[in-house]
């Protein structure tokens, strides 16, 4: 009897502890967001969004940073999307099972786990030095593209896998070739999920700092880039720069820039979640 009471007590105690742990995570998240919003919202205004960097914290803005971030987003999408989707397609639709496919799979799993700073080293040596792109937007976008490539490939594969075999059979039975089947049936049917994955991958790319530091994107760049070969800065770099300054006013700027960065990240994630839900509601095979 006493034993079973003890068991029940332990059970209850763990339940309380479980709630505590779950909410401590959420509370920290909350504190953290509130802290940043309080600190940053004072600085976040139109001027802040449209001003160039400055040595005076109160005059500095993030125009170059968010424009750079947009550039990076677009370029990275242009590079990583076709590559990632094509590779995912190959692995799921074309690659025969066997050692080679197995090897590719392990390889991609590994790439997904390579720390981002290593991609920075790769970008530094290959794009910045060997290809002589310098610390340009293009070098940054190429580096980040390689970084998110495995994520896109994996989500593309998952999305394609979810398209039922019967759709492919239907298409083949009407005399469609493999590519016609892929292009007319498989891709449209999985497009929503692929897009979701890509947006999630991009939200990762938007927040990356370390690889860009390694390829040398840490200069004072007081202008917005106008071509992919221009030097650039992005929001995370600008935040890093301000965070490492001791003056309180710059920390406030950092907080304000963080709000801007979080808005972009959450927006991308929100779109992805929305698309995913819509996708799940729309298609029931």
């Amino acid at each position, binding site marked *: 009897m006493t034993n079973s009471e003890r068991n029940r007590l332990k059970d209850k105690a763990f339940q309380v502890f479980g709630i505590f742990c779950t909410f401590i995570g959420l509370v920290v998240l909350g504190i953290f967001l509130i802290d940043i919003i309080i600190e940053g919202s004072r600085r976040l205004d139109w001027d802040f969004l449209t001003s160039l960097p400055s*040595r005076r914290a109160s005059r500095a803005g993030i125009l170059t940073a968010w424009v750079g971030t947009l550039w990076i987003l677009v370029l990275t999408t242009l590079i990583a999307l076709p590559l990632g989707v094509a590779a995912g397609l190959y692995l799921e639709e074309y690659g025969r099972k066997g050692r080679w496919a197995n090897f590719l799979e392990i390889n991609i799993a590994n790439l997904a786990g390579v720390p981002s700073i290593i991609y920075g080293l790769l970008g530094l040596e290959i794009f910045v030095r060997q290809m002589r792109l310098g610390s340009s937007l293009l070098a940054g976008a190429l580096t980040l593209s390689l970084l998110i490539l495995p994520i896109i490939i994996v989500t593309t594969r998952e999305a394609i896998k979810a398209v039922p075999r019967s759709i492919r059979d239907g298409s083949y039975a009407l005399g469609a070739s493999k590519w016609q089947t892929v292009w007319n049936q498989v891709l449209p049917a999985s497009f929503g999920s692929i897009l979701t994955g890509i947006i999630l991958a991009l939200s990762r790319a938007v927040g990356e700092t370390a690889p860009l530091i390694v390829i040398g994107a*840490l*200069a*004072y760049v007081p202008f917005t880039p106008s071509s992919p070969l221009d030097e650039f800065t992005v929001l995370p770099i600008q935040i890093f720069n301000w965070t*490492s300054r*001791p003056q309180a006013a710059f920390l406030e700027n950092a907080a304000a820039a963080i709000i801007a960065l979080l808005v972009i990240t959450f927006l991308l994630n929100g779109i992805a979640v929305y698309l995913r839900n819509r996708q799940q509601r729309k298609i029931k095979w």
Partner: protein
Amino acid sequence: GSEGGSDLTGSVQIDGSSTVYPITEAVAEEYRAEAPDVRVTVGVSGSGSGFKKFSRGEIDITNASRPINDEEAKTAEQNGLAYLEIPVAYDGLTVVVHPENDWVKEITVAELKKIWEPAAQGKIKRWNQIRPEWPDQEIHLYGPGVESGTYDYFTEAIVGKSHSSRGDFTASEDDNVLVQGVSTDKYALGFFGLAYYEENQGKLKAVAVDDGDDSNGKGAIVASLETVKDGSYAPLSRPLFIYVQSKAVERPEVVDFVNFYLENAAVLSEEVGYIPLPDELYKEQQQKFEQFVSGKGAATAQQ
């Protein structure tokens, strides 16, 4: 030219010293109003890195908190580059501790050497190893990274040999990181350019330095605008430079920018916490620069 709104275009690429960075940053920022379409980028990779890029011709101007050395000069020559050294301000390399540090009031050059020389690595680890009356606490050291001119200058002046120091300290090319480190660490000791101290006075305490030579000021002296100007803050006072290379001055925007720099260096260097040169020196630099641009001045470049 103070008429404003020049229609020059193009770009000026600058890199190098973090000590000089605040001045150049200020100049670049003000220059935006002058020539909005000229793109001035300023990197912070330390004087050493700056000279390396400069002598390879990768950048137009480099910031430097020490003069160019022989090796760097030779590389420039091999690459067919002439250059002009332009002093822009004076700096007093400041030794700092945490504001709650109530034991260190002044320090001698000998003690600094004892702390920083290579032999100290892994050996001098506690405050009371320097002076017995100081606390028996671990000492945490912060200093500029090896690419920095400040590091070169400090090791030269204190240890006696450039580029020679212990390696077990927090080293960063970004002086802001050092400020942050010292200002949040009660057992810290660090050094960097005066501007970074002036900017963060509430968070740091400057330590008076005694060079044991009363001829240039008696006892220990704290770095400040005055003590640097009158030369009594020794041996850690020094000039700061920018270097311009000959290929770059073929472009009008570079010439315009350097002229603008020299016109405004006095005001802006004081604003960010350094000691401006006497006015006539700036005038002199302007003339030298004019000659350099016209091609005659190349000979005046350091041999």
